[in-house]
């Protein structure tokens, strides 16, 4: 079962067009909702004006003063309101101010445009470099980096930057809310497109000031998320529920693409300064990284994005003296949020580009410089984490370089690039890791729960709040439970995430579903089997049909039997939040990615012609689904590296359309060649580690390193390296 490419469990419904996404569900009396937003980045809301010619009496209108509970989104830092009140401060453009609902969506849109806001504008901080407001600051210190600059043979420093990236899940955000007015308390139910049912649950409990059992959140089939449906859905669900509560009717709040792109979160833009010192043999002596994220207007998840970014800033290298200074700064742009990789792609871009820059300075091949400095079993990372697994980074790199034909191609391309051909080719790579599960003490704080339930027909159901968002969680959880119970996969059902039915397994983020929640599913399945045995329904060994009969009998006799497992931090994992020292993650996944590019020096277009993605992710539970995750992540990484550019105009996204925000089509990408090295790790079920975010970390530095190889010395310090940016840099280089 484990290691087999079981076919996607919900795949049949998806290919037949029978899956039910949020906007596919409706009621005859449903109202459509709309959000009125600020069009300035900073100011005081003085008044809301309702224009002429709209039958306002037909509309349900919600402002901040209607809110029955707290007008604050319950998150890490409680700073973001659901709606800005009149007299309140607007912190970013697109900030929600007022909600409208009406049965006719065309009239609704007309009404939305008829509302104007009187705002006393205040100066806006739109550039992170001019911000002086810190949301979070982190210092990681290891050794004494200032003591080694003088004795080093080489000191190389440079600046790097990465820009915002839009998730562009193909299904825009949307929620459907129903509020039943009870005699004593209301019952709020929201169905929607989301990653984290219990985040939304917590937000609505505070918004309505209701006990937990009066708020029910159900995840509908979700058309992609990538982090973009982690925190923002709490606002949308709150808005839909406020309208439904006031209207006394179900309300559907579905964003169109332009609203989704303009208003919801993006990947944090970053600015990084890296200074590295080497001895005469190319051994890394010191690393000083200054890492800044543009958090936008509210704190949201920025503190933890920063944390992951800072911890990954040292990369896969042994370094006796490291200083990582990281901060997330406030600006008056829409809040940045979670996006696959969660800060690590930003800091790893800087480091893995810098390693190639350093290799050139030291006169070494990039592979040779890395080889001399790779972390090995028994080494410690910048946070003082002792590596207890036998990681073979040199082996991973050598295999990747052989797969892409690195040595031969570098020779071949060097000769061809000397000719007057306008097409220059290059090959480059990156080596990196991604921490699996929540950072530091996150998992022990969450203390997630998952369960297994016996059904009347003799099958079992997996009970977990983890959401299927395309990654294959339903299939992998079924495989894990089936393996533990020694039954076929079709005897395992995976419950729809519904806070009334499933326990809080934590959010579907941080490459944790398979490794952390999957492990709980495995433990719960073992406990379930043990309970059947102890109560005399089952004896081992057994055939699947015997198991089925045992579950049926137990159900007939005792009713539904559920067994749960809860996460407990293993005693050997120790983390100190104050000093940022200790075991940052239970384990890491490791990878080496290589890209071959062709650059047209007339049009500055870059084509990625070949891509190899090799990784060590522990035991692979489902090779086909795992490869699908890697291929999709690489595609997003190449998009971020070359094309996906958010254009800002006075704090607003100006290109909030698919027409001019460019993601890769099938014609823009090569066949991505994926390989797995398996090194089972005890942190996960059957030795599996996390892999969802890993593929986002490597493509950008690999692609720009390949560009460097194609074009020679050039300031390739930023992603996306659009044709316009590449032209600027090549013209500067030509003088």
């Amino acid at each position, binding site marked *: 079962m484990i290691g087999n490419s079981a076919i996607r469990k919900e795949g049949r419904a*998806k290919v037949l067009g029978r899956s039910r996404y949020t906007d596919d569900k409706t009621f005859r009396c449903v109202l459509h909702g709309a959000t009125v937003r600020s069009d300035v980045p900073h100011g005081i809301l003085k008044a809301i004006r309702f224009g002429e010619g709209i039958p306002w009496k037909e509309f349900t209108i919600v402002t901040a003063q209607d809110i029955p509970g707290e007008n604050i989104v319950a998150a890490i830092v409680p700073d973001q309101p659901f709606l800005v009140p009149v007299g309140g401060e607007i912190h970013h453009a697109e900030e929600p101010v007022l909600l409208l609902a009406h049965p006719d969506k065309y009239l609704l849109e007309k009404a939305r445009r008829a509302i104007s806001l009187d705002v006393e504008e205040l100066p806006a901080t739109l550039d992170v470099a001019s911000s002086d407001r810190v949301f979070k600051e982190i210092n990681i210190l290891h050794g004494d980096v200032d003591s080694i600059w003088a004795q080093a043979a080489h000191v190389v420093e440079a600046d790097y930057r990465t820009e915002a990236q839009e998730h562009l899940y193909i*299904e825009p955000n949307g929620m459907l809310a129903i509020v039943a007015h009870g005699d004593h308390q209301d019952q709020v139910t929201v169905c929607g497109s989301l990653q984290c049912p219990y985040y939304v649950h917590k937000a609505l409990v505070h918004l309505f000031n209701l006990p937990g059992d009066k708020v029910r959140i159900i995840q509908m089939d979700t*058309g992609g998320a990538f982090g973009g449906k982690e925190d923002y859905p709490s606002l949308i669900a709150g808005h839909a529920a406020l309208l439904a509560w006031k209207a006394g009717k179900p309300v559907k709040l579905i964003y169109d693409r332009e609203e989704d792109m303009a208003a919801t979160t993006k990947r944090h833009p970053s600015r990084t300064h890296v200074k590295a010192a080497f001895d005469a043999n190319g051994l890394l002596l010191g690393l000083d990284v200054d890492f800044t994220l543009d958090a936008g207007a509210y704190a949201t998840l920025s503190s933890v994005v920063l944390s992951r970014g800072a911890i990954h800033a040292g990369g896969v290298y042994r370094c006796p003296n490291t200083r990582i200074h990281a901060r997330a700064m406030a600006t008056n742009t829409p809040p940045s949020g979670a996006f696959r990789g969660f800060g690590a792609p930003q800091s790893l871009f800087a480091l893995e580009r810098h390693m190639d820059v350093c290799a050139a300075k030291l006169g070494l091949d990039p592979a040779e410089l890395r080889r001399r400095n790779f972390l090995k079993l028994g080494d410690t990372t910048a946070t003082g984490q002792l590596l207890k697994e036998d990681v073979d980074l040199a082996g991973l790199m050598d295999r990747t370089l052989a797969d892409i034909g690195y040595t031969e191609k570098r020779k071949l391309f060097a000769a061809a690039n000397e000719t007057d051909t306008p097409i220059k080719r290059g090959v480059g790579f990156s080596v990196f890791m991604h921490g699996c599960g929540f950072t530091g003490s996150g998992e022990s704080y969450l203390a997630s729960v998952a369960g297994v339930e016996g059904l009347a027909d003799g099958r079992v159901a997996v009970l977990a709040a983890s959401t299927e968002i*395309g990654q294959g969680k339903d299939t992998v959880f079924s495989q894990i439970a089936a393996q533990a119970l020694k039954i076929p996969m079709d005897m395992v059902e995976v419950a729809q995430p519904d806070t009334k039915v499933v326990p809080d397994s934590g959010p579907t983020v941080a490459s944790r579903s398979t490794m952390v929640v999957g492990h709980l599913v495995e433990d719960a399945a073992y406990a379930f089997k043990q309970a059947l045995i102890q109560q005399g329904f089952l004896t081992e060994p057994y055939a699947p049909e015997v198991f089925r009969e045992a579950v049926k009998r137990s159900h007939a006799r005792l009713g539904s039997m559920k067994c749960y497992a809860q996460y407990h931090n293993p005693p050997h994992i120790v983390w100190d939040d104050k000093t940022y020292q200790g075991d940052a993650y239970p384990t890491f996944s490791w990878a080496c990615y290589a890209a071959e590019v062709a650059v047209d020096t007339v049009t500055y277009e870059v084509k990625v012609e070949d891509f190899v993605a090799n990784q060590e992710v522990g035991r692979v539970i489902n090779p086909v689904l795992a490869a699908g995750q890697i291929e999709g992540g690489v595609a997003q990484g190449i998009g971020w590296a070359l094309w996906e550019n958010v254009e800002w105009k006075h704090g607003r996204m100006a290109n909030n359309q698919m027409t001019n925000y460019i993601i890769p089509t099938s*014609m823009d990408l090569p*066949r991505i060649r994926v390989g797995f090295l398996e090194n089972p790790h005890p942190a996960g079920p059957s030795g599996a580690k996390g892999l969802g975010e890993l593929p986002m970390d490597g493509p950008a530095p690999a692609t720009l390193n390949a560009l460097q190889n194609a074009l020679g010395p050039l300031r390739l310090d930023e992603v996306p390296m659009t044709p316009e940016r590449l032209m600027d840099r090549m013209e500067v280089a030509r003088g």
Partner: protein
Amino acid sequence: MAEKILLRLTVNGEPRAVEVFPMARLVDVLREDLKLTGTKEGCGEGECGACTIRMDGRIVNSCLIPAIQAQGSVLLTVEGLATGEEPHALQSAFHHHNGAQCGFCTPGMLIAAEDLLRRCPNPDEAQIREGLSGNLCRCTGYVKIVDAVKAVAEGRPA
């Protein structure tokens, strides 16, 4: 506002008639009036291809077609690909090759793939990539989708 018209269509082989505004978008007519929610809307401006359907033998973005333009036309949506409970070869191949991840682009992608194989029964990889380039997918990196289409062209969908 204009008056509603009686729109007559043949959808997935069945004659249908609905009263709609002449400028209603075809994607809304399908999803809201005909309750065929398999067709998806991803952008509303003809870029993403999630709303791709076949209309009178050609594939179109149904978000860009006003109802009146579809008067009397023959439409195929994802719901019409299967024969009863028997999936179309492309549907089987997408399922078995993991060509659908989140599944939101899948209905449009399947219609585009069906159209490609109709026009070009034995496409090579470059032709498949070109044939599907009007349909954006954010999950797969397209590899498994290309494999699924190739498998059908080679007569081995599952």
